């Protein structure tokens, strides 16, 4: 009765083999590596690049141990594999491929990474190590809240300007445009003019909702955004912010950054192994907005007005700012265009005199406004202003040389360093809505290593103590249970690796806890077998009945645990989710290992013996009377 057909043993062997195959990669060490990739669509990652990388490193005297090209880029590992060589290689490659520009504006991204040394044949079967969570490898986690109200407010600002220039263009006479919150109010004194304006506005921008108000000589047009336009705007704002964050973080050349939208108005940023969280925070925390503004007065123009302003009488609508060279200029508060209109900004070289320049592109609307403004203001200066936390800072204030369009360049006595800085700042300035860090978790690499050790020690010693106890208490059957528990651990780790789950410290805790709980199934079976033996059953019958009868209880008790696990998964966040995943998977693997696998081994050990007299399952203690018969009188 305790025999498995051959296919069941085959399943056991296959499960063990798969378990081993997918668990083993976790034990291969990670070595320092360099990855060359790109975020520019026109740059190719090909064998020519690989050759160039290899020869560069050879010239620089870096001992290359492994180099390969895959769709994600060129991967280089080193002989000896220390971080010093890694840095040396990075610097050499930066110099060769990106002319020393390290801010991500060059053609390539040269990132320091850690690569697993898992053999190719394993990798080709997707046998890869688990991801380690930030608490285990160190790193930074940020949750950014995007201020949608701010985005809508800015959209209203933009629309106000658009309406003004549109009405001027169409020669509609109006009394003025005012803004309160997200609502714009346009004043008219004549109903015919208002109708004209209404037609002009609705045809030029279909996202706006117009409502007529007032009577007689006080006529108004109330302008708001349509609901679907608001939603579109919010989505676009998040997407834009995400893109900006992506650019900024990639520019730092960090490993595997994760930038994801979470919920309606949040963005999660995770950068594992970030060695410089302060710099990262500085870069992503730069939530400023960029504005192009008209310069009213500077040293060579309206000097007297400038002097007066310096003495404290700043005219209404103007602002006294200092540019990077320390020169004070008087600029308009009202921007010509804002950062959202900028689609790109890159450092480059002028084709004629080879001077470093910044090349800027704008979207259609931005180009139209700029063209209109600059055509009337040639030889005037225009300030590019970054506003951060209410403080305005002039990045540069060049003189307009000609009418600007969708693409223009900023030139003049700048070093390459300055142009790349300005380009970075202009691009960084183009976030669509202000953001705020609402959650931060930074774990240093040393703590990460400690956490791995602690988690590993907990599992190791817990497992050892548990196995020792179970073997002493249930003898050979206990040994089989302990083996089944080890298989459980193996399968759990294998499944987590297959799913490429992220292992966190709570996840390791869940592994330990799950093992502790999984033994429950074995205990249930052993106790049932003992009970059957106590009641006088033959050993073979006892084994069979023990496994069969314990099954219903095991299923029951695991389902309740599974319910808790699923709820944790559904509502947990971050580390708790990791805990829940491991917990749920552990329950499933424990049922397989404790019931199916342990039974198989018991069958293998005892099943073939026809005249089995005794099972080694520890003491079977028999009371004088049989326990299953209730001791009615004694209980009274």
């Amino acid at each position, binding site marked *: 009765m305790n025999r498995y057909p051959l296919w069941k043993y085959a399943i056991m062997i296959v499960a063990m083999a798969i378990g081993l195959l997918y668990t083993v990669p976790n034990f291969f060490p990670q070595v320092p590596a360099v990855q060359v990739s790109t975020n520019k669509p026109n740059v190719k990652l090909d064998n020519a690049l690989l050759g160039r990388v290899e020869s560069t490193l050879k010239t620089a005297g870096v001992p290359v141990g492994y180099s390969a090209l895959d769709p994600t880029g060129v991967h280089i590992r080193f002989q000896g594999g220390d971080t010093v060589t890694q840095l040396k290689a990075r610097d050499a490659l930066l110099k060769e491929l990106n002319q020393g520009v390290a801010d991500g504006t060059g053609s390539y991204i040269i990132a320091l990474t850690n690569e697993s040394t898992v053999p190719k044949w394993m990798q080709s079967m997707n046998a890869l190590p688990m991801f380690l969570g930030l608490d285990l490898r160190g790193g930074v986690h940020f*949750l950014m809240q995007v201020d949608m109200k701010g985005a809508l407010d800015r959209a209203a600002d933009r629309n106000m300007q658009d309406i003004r220039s549109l009405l001027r263009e169409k020669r509609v006479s109006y009394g003025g445009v005012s803004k309160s919150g997200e609502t714009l109010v346009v004043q008219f004194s004549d109903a015919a003019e208002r109708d004209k304006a209404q037609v002009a506005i609705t045809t030029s921008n279909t996202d706006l909702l117009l409502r007529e108000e007032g009577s007689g000589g006080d006529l108004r047009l109330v302008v708001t955004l349509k609901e679907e336009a608001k939603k579109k705007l919010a989505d676009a704002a998040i997407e834009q912010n995400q893109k900006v964050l992506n650019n900024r973080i990639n520019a730092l050349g960090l490993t595997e950054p994760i930038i994801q939208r979470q919920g309606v108005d949040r963005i999660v940023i995770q950068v594992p192994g970030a060695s410089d969280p302060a710099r990262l925070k500085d870069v992503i925390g730069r939530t400023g907005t960029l504005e192009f503004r008209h310069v009213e007065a500077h040293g060579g123009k309206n000097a007297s007005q400038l002097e007066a302003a310096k003495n404290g009488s700043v005219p209404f609508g103007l602002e006294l700012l200092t540019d990077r060279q320390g020169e004070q200029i008087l600029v308009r508060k009202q921007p010509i265009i804002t950062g959202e209109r900028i689609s790109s900004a890159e450092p480059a070289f002028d084709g004629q005199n080879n001077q470093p320049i910044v090349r800027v592109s704008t979207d259609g609307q931005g180009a139209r406004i700029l063209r209109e403004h600059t055509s009337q203001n040639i030889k005037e200066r225009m300030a590019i202003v970054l506003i951060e936390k209410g403080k305005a800072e002039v990045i540069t204030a060049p003189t307009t040389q000609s009418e600007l369009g969708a693409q223009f360049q900023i030139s003049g006595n700048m070093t390459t360093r300055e142009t790349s800085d300005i380009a970075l700042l202009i691009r960084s300035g183009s976030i669509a809505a202000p953001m705020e860090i609402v959650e931060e978790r930074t774990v240093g690499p040393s703590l990460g290593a400690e956490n791995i050790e602690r988690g590993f020690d907990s599992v190791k010693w817990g497992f050892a103590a548990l196995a020792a106890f179970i073997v002493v208490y249930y003898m050979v059957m206990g040994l089989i249970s302990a083996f089944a528990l080890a298989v459980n651990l193996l399968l759990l780790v294998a499944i987590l690796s297959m799913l490429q789950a992220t292992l966190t410290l709570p996840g390791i805790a869940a592994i330990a806890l799950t093992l502790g709980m999984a033994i429950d199934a074995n205990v249930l079976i052993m106790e049932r077998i003992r009970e059957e033996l106590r009641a006088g059953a033959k050993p073979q019958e006892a084994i069979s009945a023990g496994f069969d009868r314990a099954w219903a209880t095991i299923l029951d008790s695991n389902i309740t645990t599974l319910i808790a696990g699923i709820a944790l998964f559904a509502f947990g966040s971050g580390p708790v989710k990791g805990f829940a995943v491991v917990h749920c998977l552990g329950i499933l693997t424990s049922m397989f290992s404790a019931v199916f696998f342990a039974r198989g081994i018991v069958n293998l050990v005892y099943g073939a013996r026809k005249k089995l007299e005794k099972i080694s399952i520890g003491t079977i203690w028999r009371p004088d009377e049989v326990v299953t018969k209730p001791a009615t009188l004694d209980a009274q």
Partner: protein
Amino acid sequence: MEFFRFKRDLPFMKYALIFNVISALTFLVAVGALAYNGLHFGIDFKGGTVAELHFNKTADVAQVRTSVETLNTGEAFVQNFGSPTEVLVRLPIVQNISNAQMGEKLFSAICGPSRPLNESKNACGEGVEKIELKRVEFVGGQVGRELFESGALALLLVIAGIMMYLAIRFEWRFAVAAIIANLHDVVIILGLFALFGWEFNLPVLAACLAILGYSVNESVVIADRVRENFRKMRKASVDEVIDNAITSTISRTIITHGSTQIMVLAMLLFGGETLHYFALALTIGICFGIYSSVLVMAPLIRWLGVSRENLVKAEGPPKDPLEAEKILA
């Protein structure tokens, strides 16, 4: 080896009233501690900043406290964390300033002018004077509230899910008794956390929910036996049936919980500070889990009036041969 040698069924039900009074008292103490002290929420739920610092010599906690006080954040905790060279600083959310920058401000205040910060701003000073910033966590108020709400929701979902399952699998009386018994465990965990001012954070909440699911196992096993006994012991009274169910499963209950506790103990010993409260919550939960399944749930099903009729009759004729064999036996 055999730890449990019962010659006869232990008369649990005879003393049911006493157990119920004890449970009610512990429950009241726990609720009292919760009401009086309140839970000491970690930054996960309350918002705020936590920083873990490593000193190369024994840390001068008093001095760190003085430096922290210069930030004027109001209530701030400074304490040793696991060893004399580790210090944990916890700051509340401060209105009107950018809390996201608090970690940096805090670290530079602690380093002071004598220890220059390194380039990455995660260490300062040299040699024995060196201080390393091992971990910074900041949770905004809104995020904290959300984590709290989703945690509470998870708890409700677990309770509802388990009750539904037990009601379908057994009967409503079991569902009610089991959930009361196991909530009793959770309330006691929370009560002890409130009483001793231990930090209640996300992992502790996870532990509570895991315990809820785990403890119900015990109730299920006992309920299973009660039902089986109602079928087998046709002439026995309700009390005898319950006593026998508990006695015949107690060995398994204690060994299982003991095994889980071995694992948790390893976590408590080797898991470090991060897992400390998590393991502590599990320990309390496991210990009270044994007590509550045996001595809270069983009396409760009796008070709720469980009987042979409402269990066996509701079942209808047994379908699978194993069940049939049991009834025939």
